[in-house]
């Protein structure tokens, strides 16, 4: 059930319309409404709450209860721009109030200092758009701290020797260690690597209206019934609603940013649940629709003034898509871990955050975590050792033995930005509303594949040192499915080589701002949400200052 909110008329020009209510949109809405502005959030998905969530794997995973629906919103995929894209499910994102933050793993590392300045440190990489950010870690540090304290992140400050500097410790202790975490930590120690308690956007201590984690075990891909996962739904949106100035309008599918003759945004055009079209008028538009839907919305908003898509004078809207590289390895142990209990990840290490390209022969770096994030059906369908019979007595026996004795070691790594990797509009396929479908074009840079295999090899070393009875993984393949949607409206100082400036304002439209995974310049080492949320807190500060100085509508 939705809490009480103001109801703004579409003709009432509010201060801000925010498109999307996920990791970034929720925080922008909270910050702007807390600063006294009138805000409407348009969310394409429904407003579900804790009572609507379920541990039914069919409903959540097969019927897309929380996610974009392939029948309503089909998409296409191709590897390179010279191919014709074929219909194929190519991405998943949360399609509900709270967005992808509702169903994510909640791994919440900060980016490190190197992520923002790596191009300057190691030099150019031929054929890529590898470049520095216009901001540094130091610019973002106060906002990382803000995320941890306001949204709720558990962790242990100073536990990793590779951690970047921080101004404040975590607001609450780390979550309990899991069996996978103990095994991982001990094996890492043997190998000279430095495992530490994973920072997680999951409460280890209750907060008003939110329970601490009860370790139910249905975490990744599921919504949290007790409000322990620090999604935008559980945290930022609720705070925005408390201001009495923020309306969350679900089932509102924005498909155009409206402009006036002077090239100023005047609001957002959307379909309501009955597919009636409305224009919500606003002084300023902030798009936080994710790294796929944000560029799509700009491309759908093409007009005479912007024939190649809104805010696309650089031609880079939708380009430089990065998915993060990496791979998962499995280990089976003698005794029960019962790792199905609890959240996914309790230990990680960052020893390979910056690999020396001279030594390993490729660019990249990563972080590695110990986890178990497989619910029973997912486990039976895809996590038994290679060569296990697919049915019958031995299938059953292996399933029965392994479910409580298996853990995963997950390596997460960099992706290089390539101009040919993109989200664009499919020229043929349409969604259920008749709008051009998303087309994904993606082929990993060879270094990303090399890094994935390198991290996989370290994972097997770790499982060997841990005494796993059985261990396996698979060679890295070129990715055809996107979960992390990064880099597609990148931030930069030069309007020719970026879409938004360091204030998240589009170079081309002065009262249009973008903030989500699309803003990222580099991919980090695989856990982008913490950085997306820190960017959102920072963007909201910048936007507030511009608005208070009267510079947005000037």
């Amino acid at each position, binding site marked *: 059930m939705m809490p009480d909110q103001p109801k703004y008329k579409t003709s009432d020009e509010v201060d801000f319309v925010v498109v999307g209510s996920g990791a970034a949109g929720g925080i922008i809405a909270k910050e702007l409404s807390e600063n006294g502005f009138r805000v409407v959030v348009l969310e394409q998905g429904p407003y579900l709450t804790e009572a609507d969530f379920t541990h039914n794997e069919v409903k959540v995973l097969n019927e897309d209860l929380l996610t974009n629906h*392939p029948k309503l919103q089909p998409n296409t995929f191709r590897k390179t721009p010279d191919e014709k894209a074929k219909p194929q499910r190519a991405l998943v994102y949360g399609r509900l109030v709270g967005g992808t933050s509702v169903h994510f793993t909640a791994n919440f590392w900060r980016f490190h200092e190197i992520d923002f300045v790596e191009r300057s440190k190691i030099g150019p990489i031929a054929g890529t758009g590898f470049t520095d950010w216009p901001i540094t870690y130091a610019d973002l540090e106060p906002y990382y701290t803000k995320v941890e304290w306001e949204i709720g992140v558990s962790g242990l400050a100073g536990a990793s020797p590779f951690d970047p500097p921080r101004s404040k410790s975590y607001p609450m202790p780390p979550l309990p260690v899991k069996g996978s975490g103990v095994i991982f930590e001990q094996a890492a120690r043997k190998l000279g690597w430095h495992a530490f308690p994973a920072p997680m956007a999951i409460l280890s201590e209750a907060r008003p209206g939110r*329970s601490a984690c009860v370790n139910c075990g249905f975490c990744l891909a599921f919504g949290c019934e007790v409000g322990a996962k620090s999604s935008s739904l559980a945290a930022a949106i609720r705070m925005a609603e408390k201001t009495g100035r923020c309306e969350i309008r679900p089932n509102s599918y924005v498909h155009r940013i409206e402009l006036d003759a002077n090239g100023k945004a005047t609001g957002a055009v959307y379909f309501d649940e009955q597919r009636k079209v409305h224009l919500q008028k606003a002084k300023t538009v902030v798009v936080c629709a994710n790294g796929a839907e944000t560029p799509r919305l700009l491309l759908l908003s093409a007009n005479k003034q912007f024939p190649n898509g809104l805010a696309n004078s650089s031609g880079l809207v939708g380009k430089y898509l990065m998915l993060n590289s990496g791979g*998962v390895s499995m280990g089976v142990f003698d005794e029960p871990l019962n790792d199905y209990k609890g959240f996914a990840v309790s230990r990680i290490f960052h020893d390979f955050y910056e690999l020396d390209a001279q030594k390993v022969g490729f660019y990249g770096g990563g972080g590695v975590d110990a986890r178990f994030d497989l619910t029973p*059906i997912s486990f039976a369908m*895809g996590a038994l050792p290679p060569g296990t019979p697919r049915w019958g007595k031995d299938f059953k026996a292996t399933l029965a033995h392994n479910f409580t004795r298996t853990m*995963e070691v997950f390596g997460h790594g960099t992706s290089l930005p390539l101009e040919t990797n993109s989200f664009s509009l499919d020229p043929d396929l349409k969604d259920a509303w008749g709008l051009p479908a998303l087309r994904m074009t993606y082929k990993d840079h060879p270094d990303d594949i090399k890094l994935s295999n390198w991290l996989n090899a370290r994972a097997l070393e770790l499982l060997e040192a841990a005494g796993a009875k059985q261990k396996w993984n698979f060679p890295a393949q070129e990715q055809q499915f996107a979960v992390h949607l990064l880099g597609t409206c990148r931030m930069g100082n030069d309007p020719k080589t970026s879409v938004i400036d360091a204030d998240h304002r589009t170079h081309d439209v002065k009262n249009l701002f973008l903030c989500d995974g699309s803003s990222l310049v580099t991919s980090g080492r695989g856990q982008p949400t913490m950085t997306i949320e820190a960017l959102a807190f920072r963007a909201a500060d910048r936007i507030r200052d511009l608005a208070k100085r009267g510079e947005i509508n000037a």
Partner: protein
Amino acid sequence: MNTDLGRRDFLLRSCSSLTAVWVSAHWPALLSAASHARKAGQSPAAPKLEFFTTDEAKEIDAITARIIPTDETPGAREAGTVYFIDRALTTFAIDDQKSYREGLPEMQERTHEIFPAVDKFSAATPEQQEEILHSFDEQVEAKSIRRPNRPRPAAKTFFETVRTHTIVAFLLDPDAGGDPNGVGWKVIGREREHMFQPPFGYYDQNYPGWQPSSTATDKSKS
């Protein structure tokens, strides 16, 4: 005795105070959903078939009993898999009706081909049934570990579809639409609860607490 209420009392004692307030406020909804599912499972009347005929159900039951057989522990049959599939084919798996309508006669033809003396699949011996099913087996080479948020390709053949549905029936959360008796979860060692306290298993029970390794301290100084 109402074990759900006992569990709640335990939780209230073991949780921090705010969590206790939360559980207390929300428990009625959680409890009623769970007990409703359990009552449905304890209903004495045999479940009614909605999609299969009784004869068809007998054949499907025989197939599921080879996919997850009954041995020292219960299998698909004890989990009521055929009734789950029957329900699924009129609800979430409605698109798979055709696969069953066309697949079952093919299965019977194959049975006659391999064992001309055997009238129907359910009349074959378990060994014969395995041989018949192996003739449908696809050589599926795993290339990756299936992630929970990756798409699940629709099963292509009748046998693959029955296999998928049998696994779903066996392992779907017993309190969220799965087998109300929770047979499958018992077999794989998944406790039926949805709230747990550490230690969770063998390896974390004597964990001394996180300690920085000496090299970590050195590195952080350098």
